[in-house]
């Protein structure tokens, strides 16, 4: 997994609540059996004027000039600013894959859907919860300032705005550790093989019908 330590990136504001995983990556792209290549289809239905299908040459498709990701001032953005309940809906990891593949490394919102939130950490993407008022202030600042950037420091759990304002955020110690070091969960869990085996033996003896 890609490490996450520091990030200094352009911010793009997506001013909608309840952005669901169907919007982040429409289902026709879930037919892929690969993990990468979803970036050009992130937010496909909002981003393009035509209907997207797998295998199309996305570079030749008509862009929706009104969609925020298409505005010249937000090109190359690595930080997505969003509203509440971001990532609701399906458990598909294709959503963080698509966001990561597009180039995002961090998402700031007042709240996230649980499964999506979890999936982000498995893919080197940092979801940051900030109070709704702070997110609102950031929306105003981003919209008022072309080229607006934020500095995210995971070790310090801080976001620094161009005017020097520092926003602190919470992140679980274990997830922070994995992200800072780019650690793969499976490898970590397999350090506890003996404990898992001991548990399993006990569990299956107590409730043998579960282990048939």
């Amino acid at each position, binding site marked *: 997994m890609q490490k996450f330590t520091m990030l200094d990136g352009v911010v793009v504001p997506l*001013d*909608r*609540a*309840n952005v*669901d995983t*169907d*919007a982040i990556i*429409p*289902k*026709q792209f*879930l*037919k*892929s*059996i*690969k*993990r990468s290549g979803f970036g050009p289809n992130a937010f496909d*239905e909002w981003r393009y004027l035509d*209907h997207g299908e*797998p*295998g199309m040459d996305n570079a030749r498709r008509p862009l929706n000039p009104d969609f925020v990701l298409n505005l010249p001032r937000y090109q190359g953005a690595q930080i997505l600013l969003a*509203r*509440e*309940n971001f990532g*609701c*809906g*399906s*458990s*598909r*990891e*294709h959503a*963080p894959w698509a966001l990561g593949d597009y180039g995002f490394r961090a998402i700031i919102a007042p*709240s*996230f*859907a*649980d*499964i999506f939130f*979890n*999936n982000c950490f*498995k*893919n080197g993407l940092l979801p940051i919860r900030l109070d709704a008022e702070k997110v609102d202030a950031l929306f105003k600042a981003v919209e008022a300032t072309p080229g607006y950037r934020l500095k995210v420091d995971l070790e310090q759990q801080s976001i620094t705005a161009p005017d020097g304002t520092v926003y602190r955020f919470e992140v*679980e*110690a*274990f*997830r922070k550790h994995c992200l800072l070091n780019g650690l793969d*969960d*499976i490898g*970590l*869990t*397999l350090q*506890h093989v003996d*404990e*898992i085996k001991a*548990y*399993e033996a006990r*569990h299956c003896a107590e*409730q043998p*019908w*579960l*282990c*048939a």
Partner: protein
Amino acid sequence: MSTQTLYDKLWNSHLVRQEADGTALIYIDRHLVHEVTSPQAFEGLRLAGRKPWRIGSMLAVADHNVPTAGRAQGIADPISRLQVETLDSNCDALGITEFKMSDLRQGIVHVIGPEQGATLPGMTVVCGDSHTSTHGAFAALAFGIGTSEVEHVMATQCLLMKKARAMQVLVEGTLGKGVTAKDIALAVIGKIGTAGGTGFAIEFAGSTIRRLSMEGRMTLCNMAIEAGARAGMIAVDDTTIGYLKGRPFAPQGEMWDKAVAHWRTLTSDAGAQFDQVVRLDAAVIKPQVTWGTSPEMVVAVDGRVPDPANMADPVKRHDAERALHYMGLQANTLIVDINIDKVFIGSCTNARIEDLRAAAAVARGKRIAANVKLAMVVPGSGLVKQQAEQEGLDRIFAAAGFEWRDPGCSMCLAMNDDRLEAGERCASTSNRNFEGRQGPGGRTHLVSPEMAAAAAIAGHFVDVSAI
């Protein structure tokens, strides 16, 4: 020992170890697998040179991409076909039990698990699919996971997670005529919002819930995720045990008796504490219809499309305006004045035998309205389909002008050929009314099977409680 919630009991009995910050390693008893969220996990496993930890815990089925008509000809779309073939070959190579497309037992993963008795009380159940919450109806701790976690469970039989907070949704009283578990689910979401359950595991309890059939309980737990909760659950009682008896994967004989004795303990203790309690009076719940692009945008069928101008919260107002624009609806329109183009009866929410019986009872002896271009019934599994045909439901539907299809996810998310065209309006028994969910530009109204069938006959929404 202190009192415990059902969630506490399920959590504690699966705890392998816990880190200082509360991150826990939880053992997984049942891993359901489908074609969309598994290929990258199988590939990851292979690349790392790992093998699945316990093959017997896995049960696989293709459901999202399978056609619901002309199945004998195979899958026309080559990309869909490859995804299904990838699941077949991964399962064959590793010896994982899979119900293939031609198998009578094939169906939607959340329908077949319980139908086979592969979901049992006291289990932890996971699947790379958010509606895994469905299985919580059996007093199981069941939740959806992403593909990295699918691989993690395959490799370690465990998941890393933190304990959620516990919410109790208490529904007391008698449901009115024509009011179903689907309406309870939508009413709960209307009350707490799509993020109301975020960070919680919900237990549904109360006299109304105890009177629900297993099908109804599954419908309710299925939609827990639409309220933001990864898991929904319901305590064990005679209904649970009666449903499971004799199912192929359920224990038999002496083992059955031992299991039942254990299952009887899977309830929240009297006086157990919940972090939050939400109460609903069953008697006041009416048939529900969503009007917008999120399941929380819902009203009773005798109501009107809300007016964003009356919404105080600017974010909510903005979302409501956008939703009305997408849905092609005017504020203050009576719900019963909304005409529909298509009807979809199916999905892991409402494609079990009881759902089909309820819809057929409404459609019996009637014809779908002239303005309804397509009304389709997609059973949740091959066995549901067979049962329905034995009861003659297929003939009732056919005589009324409904199409009778083969099992799968179908127009719930339109990954196969079943979809809405842009601008088409659908009465759907599925669980998500997101933009484009049933096809780009398609407009979805979530309702119960009775309400969907009644809308097909009338050509617009009707209040089934008033028929």
